């Protein structure tokens, strides 16, 4: 029998910590050391995490292939599987199937200015590409991150946000819907920051991920700034089960988000039936 595509590899959680009240980060390594050394993936690809007895679900690998000490997943507690996952601790076993799906075309982005636009946990896939680019910093032009959340407490990767802002070779703009008294950054929605900064589309690519409503208004703002459809890249969320294009549920027209995506340009999305 050929390889069973539903059979996960066994992995162990080596580190776990809270990002926000309902988002937890898990760092895992494959139990088979040779398999871990041989594990290859591209920024933007996803994996299926299993908690045997509860099920499995799809999450982006949010650490870059340039940092292979572990594979990182940041998970919001919303359903049965993620509730169970949040109860796991260091040393606990999980299953991992992946890498799955397509990836960000970082080759085509070389030499260009990159604008990351993220909301909430939508920063996770952007983090992979951002860290990959920072590890290959000379290949890319100006890098800007515009990131927003509901409140300061709901921002992910807080330590890194600070670190990135202090690097000097990239720009970080943070915004929240509801500020507290200690908040020293912007207030308001993410698309408004784009407009406010008057980001130039010249030789630039915008990469965006967040809640569907944020993505929609971000794309509108980018279009107003003069970004062409090919210059706007996003990565889609869909309910998935098999992750290999067979179970049917993540289709948009004839395309499957799990194999043809999750990364799409706005030009590609415009060619699909509008059912997101």
């Amino acid at each position, binding site marked *: 029998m050929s390889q069973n595509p539903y*059979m996960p590899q066994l992995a162990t959680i080596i580190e776990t910590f809270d990002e926000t009240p309902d988002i937890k980060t898990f760092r895992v390594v494959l139990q088979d050391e040779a398999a871990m050394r041989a594990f290859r993936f591209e920024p933007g690809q996803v994996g299926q995490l299993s908690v*045997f007895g509860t099920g499995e679900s799809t999450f982006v690998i949010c650490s870059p292939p340039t940092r292979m000490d572990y594979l990182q997943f940041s998970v919001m507690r919303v359903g049965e599987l993620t509730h169970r996952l949040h109860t796991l601790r260091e040393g606990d076993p999980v299953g991992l199937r992946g890498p799955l799906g397509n990836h960000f075309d970082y080759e085509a982005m070389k030499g260009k200015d990159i604008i990351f636009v993220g909301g909430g946990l939508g920063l996770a896939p952007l983090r992979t590409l951002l860290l990959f680019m920072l590890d290959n910093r000379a290949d890319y032009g100006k890098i800007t991150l515009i990131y927003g959340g509901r409140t300061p407490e709901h921002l992910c990767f807080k330590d890194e946000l600070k670190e990135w802002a202090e690097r000097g070779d990239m720009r970080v703009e943070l915004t929240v819907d509801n500020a507290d008294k200690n908040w020293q950054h912007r207030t308001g929605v993410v698309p408004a920051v784009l407009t406010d900064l008057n980001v130039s589309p010249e030789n630039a690519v915008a990469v965006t991920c967040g809640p569907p409503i944020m993505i929609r208004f971000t794309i509108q703002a980018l279009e107003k700034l003069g970004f062409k459809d090919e210059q706007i890249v996003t990565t889609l969320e869909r309910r998935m089960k098999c992750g290999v294009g067979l179970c049917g549920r993540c289709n948009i027209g004839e395309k499957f988000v799990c*194999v043809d995506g999750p990364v799409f340009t706005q030009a590609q999305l415009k060619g699909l039936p509008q059912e997101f």
Partner: protein
Amino acid sequence: MVARFLAHDALTAQAAAWARDYQLLAPVREGQAVVYRPWAKDMHPFLGRPPTSSAKQALLPQTENLLTYTYRKDHADLTKTEVFLAEPLPSEPTVVLGCRPCDARGRKLLDRVFLERGVKDPLYEARRAVTLFITVACQRMENTCFCHWTGGGPMSEEGSDVLLFEVAGGYVAKAATAAGEKLISALPEAPQKAQEELAALLASPVEPGSAPDLRQVPQRFLALFDNMDFWMDQSARCLSCGVCTYLCPTCSCFNITDENSGLKGKRLRTWDTCMSALYTLEGSGHNPRISRAHRLRNRVGHKFCYHPQEFPGAGDSQPEVSCTGCGRCIKSCPVSVDIRSVVLDILEKGENQ
């Protein structure tokens, strides 16, 4: 190939003989329905009309095991847990008795999904390789039948290993594959009279009537895609019960869930239905197919637009659709949604959209 004969009164004994060498799925009457059941003693196969359910369960069981897992706790250190995984058991050679040509053609369309789209499904592939179809050729069309729309026919042998033609006193059995030939090798040769009856039958087969030209359907479906009034109208009666998808010989969408029992359990694949709101409900609460209109649009779109887009037929011919025209979704729909009229409405209303 030699035409062989299976007498009506020898059917049950022959089924029992097949069941000795194979796992046999045979249609039996249960109340108003005719359903496939694994062979059991005192069973009487019923071949008198197309079974209520399709034969896809032979290739894609309603529930099947993808893997098993076992947790083991370290009794010296209770914080430590290990997990062990195991592959499912291999498939057993299976014979499906009494399906219809529309069911047998469903095999080709399931192959498209599980063997030809990208990743091969090894569980399907293994089961496919050891499953044989003994098909009853249709001598009349029911008013829900439309196999001739989809490239099939009441006596088509596509996908079958053996074809049974009913004649006086029994069936003339003709093998369509070498494996089928072997399956019927113990049957006596068909008598002259039965062979003549078969020749007459083949000379004047049931006339299915004309079929609409489906070449414009994909384009017109996409033209109508955003016209929610059209889809609300088409789905107004739909109850989202999903019977259309469960009985369909080509619907192949599945769910994956874990069934736990103490420290061990199974990861199962089960049939799913795109007619359910839960099918696409995301963790965040967002649902791209929030209404019955969206979901009916997906079911019809997948069969008559997305599938032909993915597997375009040759040149100017009718598109290959992911439907064999068996009519089960029409016959068993509790509110009489008729996929034929949805397709015809797409052809008509999509023209000037």
